[in-house]
């Protein structure tokens, strides 16, 4: 968190401070409509940070985040209505259920190597599966949704989040600011650097984490020479240096490798084309396309 503040230019600090003062004072001059819009902005800023952790830091595209929002809401609301647990107590099992389901989906995804678009679709599938399932659970209100009953005598219980617009405004502002601080703290932590490493160089991270010995014992000069070299360096630097920015750079090897592969393929293809100008002139599209297709069929 301090790093976030320290790295910010003076003008940025001034603007952030000014914005905070304006937001803190907003209920004094803003009308009800503007406040309701601001509450929504805070809420989505908070949710956006949850997605930022997944995509921005760990590089995992989740399209089913609404599943976890819904699970948390259902758990807290049902505990309130059926067991009388207040929201401060209900938030604990709500967070636990959302986290357990998230961990289960992640485990399933990574256990079976479901990555990229497939992982995104897996998250959508779970979200839709659960949504339709809840539509058919009578105790959870079915397709009509689950509503907290209106109780006039409890309206003043701010400690149970039964307050007016101002209460929700400041609760939303606190949550949004808290989420930014938490994300900044996580980003600078060991876990944050591990996420960044997974994001920028998953192969090496797997080599370091799962097959450290194997990575060290790969023979030199084989096809994996570059990867082996990087993995050796990553393993060597892994232990004492979590938290250093340059450590992450070492993991950023995927781009280098893809570039060299690109150069290799382009070079070969150029040579092939230039040594056969007569073929290129006569059958350029047909022949090369056929060759490419038949190559694919042979491999298949």
């Amino acid at each position, binding site marked *: 968190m301090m790093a976030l503040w320290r790295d910010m230019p003076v003008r940025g600090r001034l603007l952030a401070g000014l914005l905070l003062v304006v937001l803190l004072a907003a209920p004094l001059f803003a009308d009800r409509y503007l406040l309701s819009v601001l509450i929504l902005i805070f809420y989505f800023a908070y949710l956006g940070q949850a997605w930022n952790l997944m995509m921005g830091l760990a590089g995992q595209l989740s*399209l089913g985040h609404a599943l976890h929002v819904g699970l948390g809401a259902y758990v807290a609301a049902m505990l309130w209505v059926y067991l009388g647990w207040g929201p401060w107590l209900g938030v604990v099992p709500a967070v636990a259920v959302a986290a357990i389901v998230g961990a289960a989906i992640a485990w399933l995804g990574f256990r079976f190597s479901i990555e990229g678009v497939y992982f995104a679709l897996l998250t959508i599938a779970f979200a839709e599966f659960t949504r339709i399932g809840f539509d058919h659970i009578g105790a959870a209100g079915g397709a009509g949704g689950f509503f907290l009953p209106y109780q006039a005598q409890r309206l003043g219980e701010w400690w149970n989040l039964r307050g007016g617009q101002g209460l929700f405004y400041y609760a939303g502002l606190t949550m949004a600011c808290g989420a930014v601080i938490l994300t900044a703290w996580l980003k600078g932590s060991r876990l944050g650097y591990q996420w960044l490493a997974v994001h920028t160089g998953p192969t090496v991270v797997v080599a370091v984490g799962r097959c450290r010995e194997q990575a060290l014992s790969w023979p030199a000069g084989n096809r994996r020479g570059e990867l082996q070299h990087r993995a050796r360096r990553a393993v060597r630097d892994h232990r004492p240096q979590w938290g250093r920015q340059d450590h992450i750079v070492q993991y950023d090897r995927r781009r280098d490798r893809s570039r060299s592969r690109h150069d290799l393929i382009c070079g070969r293809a150029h040579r092939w084309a230039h040594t056969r100008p007569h073929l290129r002139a006569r059958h350029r*599209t047909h022949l090369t396309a056929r060759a490419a297709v038949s190559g694919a069929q042979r491999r298949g």
Partner: protein
Amino acid sequence: MAAIILNVVVQGVLTGLVYGLMALGLSVIFGIVRVVNFAHGEFAVIAMYAAFLLFRELGLDPVIAALPIAAGFFCVGYLLQSALINPFVGRAEHEQFILLVGLGMVIVNGLLMIFGPDARPTNLSYAFDSYEIGPLLIDKARLLAAAAALVVAAILFTFFRMSQTGIAIRACADNLIGAAVVGLDVKRLYALTFGIGLACVGAAGALMVTIADARPALAQAFTLQAFVIVIVGGLGSMSGALVGGVLIGVSEALAGFFFEPSMKSMFSFGLLILVLVLRPQGLMGRRA
């Protein structure tokens, strides 16, 4: 009981073939351009409204209207790929996702502004006709739609197998850099592919109005359904899309019969989770 189940299965197969045609468009686009079209269902709903308007204004049967709609969608797809999507090819998946989801939102809200949220039925004269074959009662509308879907799919298969352009497009999918180096105009082929994908969606949407009423809320459901079908069949596999469509159509029909119609999508997503876990490349796809 067996006769009822058989009828349900046949209805599922016929509906599934139209679903399969819709998913075929998605599969073709992903298999070649490597862009997941998250606005797929939205285009299908536009095609449904186009078929509805052609029927209401000109009295054109949706099965016949599928042809001009597919041609129009081809042009739209070609232009869309050339102008909007080409710069995003090769960029991060989430950037493509945001672009196409944004496009889908614009389409849905545009449809809501123009047509409103109400369902627009296409009252065909043969909507309640059926053929009786032994214990089977087959809806005429579904049969026509499924037959048309099969014809379009057969034309597409022939195009990709036999024509020069089709082979060139497949070459791009097989080895992009090699294809570019030896002189194939990759961007034009990508635009053609996107056009073909949208033509499939256009035809499927036009045929879909014989089965369901047109309304903007269907868009997201269609997009998700197309995803389920292509993942079950195999992302990028053309035959897999048709097989997946039939499987999903039958599973939804059976789930609607044995449980509740509103729960049928739940079984599709359950099947999707199973396939993703047990065979991520799909039933007819190949491991990358």
